[in-house]
């Protein structure tokens, strides 16, 4: 039994390493992010409408 223990440990370590590698690859593939496109804001459409009325204020600082 003691002769087989190092072999079992090596097999266990190899299996764990392979599992971690495949799990990491699966996670990264499922969470793709393009680092050159930092801004990914949601596009608003329904809540913004042009209007033909007098505005109460503006976004211009003074």
């Amino acid at each position, binding site marked *: 039994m003691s002769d087989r223990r190092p072999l079992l440990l090596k097999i266990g370590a190899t299996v764990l390493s392979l599992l971690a590698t495949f799990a990491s690859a699966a996670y990264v593939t499922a969470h793709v992010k393009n680092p050159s496109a930092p*801004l990914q804001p*949601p596009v608003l459409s329904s809540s913004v409408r042009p209007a033909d009325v007098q505005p109460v204020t503006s976004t*211009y600082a003074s």
Partner: protein
Amino acid sequence: MRPELHFRAMGTTCSLFGDGDLAEGERWVRSIAARITRFDESSELSRLNAAAAWVDISPELEQLLRASLLAFEMSGGLVNVAVLPSMLAIGYTRPLTQGPTAAHLDQAHTAPFLPEVLKVARGRARLAPNVRIDLGGIAKGWMADRLAERLGDHVLVNLGGDLYARGEWPVAIACKTYLLRNLGAATSSTRKRRWGDLHHLIDPRTGLPATTRVEEVSVVAETALDAEVLAKTVLISGGAA
């Protein structure tokens, strides 16, 4: 007649419209502004800037610092509150109503990677040595969002152009009027706060006023803070974001 209140704070014009205790809103703005101004050495922000060690901070400053870190991440580093040394180097050493001072562009430098130099924990924060921050537009956007929440269901808060419309309000953006409902908006421009060849929008990659082919960007977003960060990012990146 619709209640409205106008006052000067944070070096700009602030306007509150609608329901709620607008006078209390003005007191809140002045109270937060006094804590986060860099022009008063006794302010909470100035003490943090000077300490280079862990400092106890108020919940409001903690939220603003966390918002600053988020803005850095959202913008890919283009919105970086650690550009204060460059702002001082270009002569923005005091409120611009008093005029800029002499520029020393050789003292401007690239801004540091914010998450490495600004650490925020519950009720306290720490800046690395020689790092100083200016909360500028981030504070106005964050405050517009918070104040609109405080004041009620039908209110428009405009803090120097960073605004949040709670309920439906007509707002002028880039020469057109839009009806905004529960949305924030902001305009970032190199035409304002400009003197000579210099302006206040620092590109953290160079430490100098942004050289950009875009002069002005207006954004409508879910919050005033998001609008402010997105507008500044697009402006500094020259529209490449």
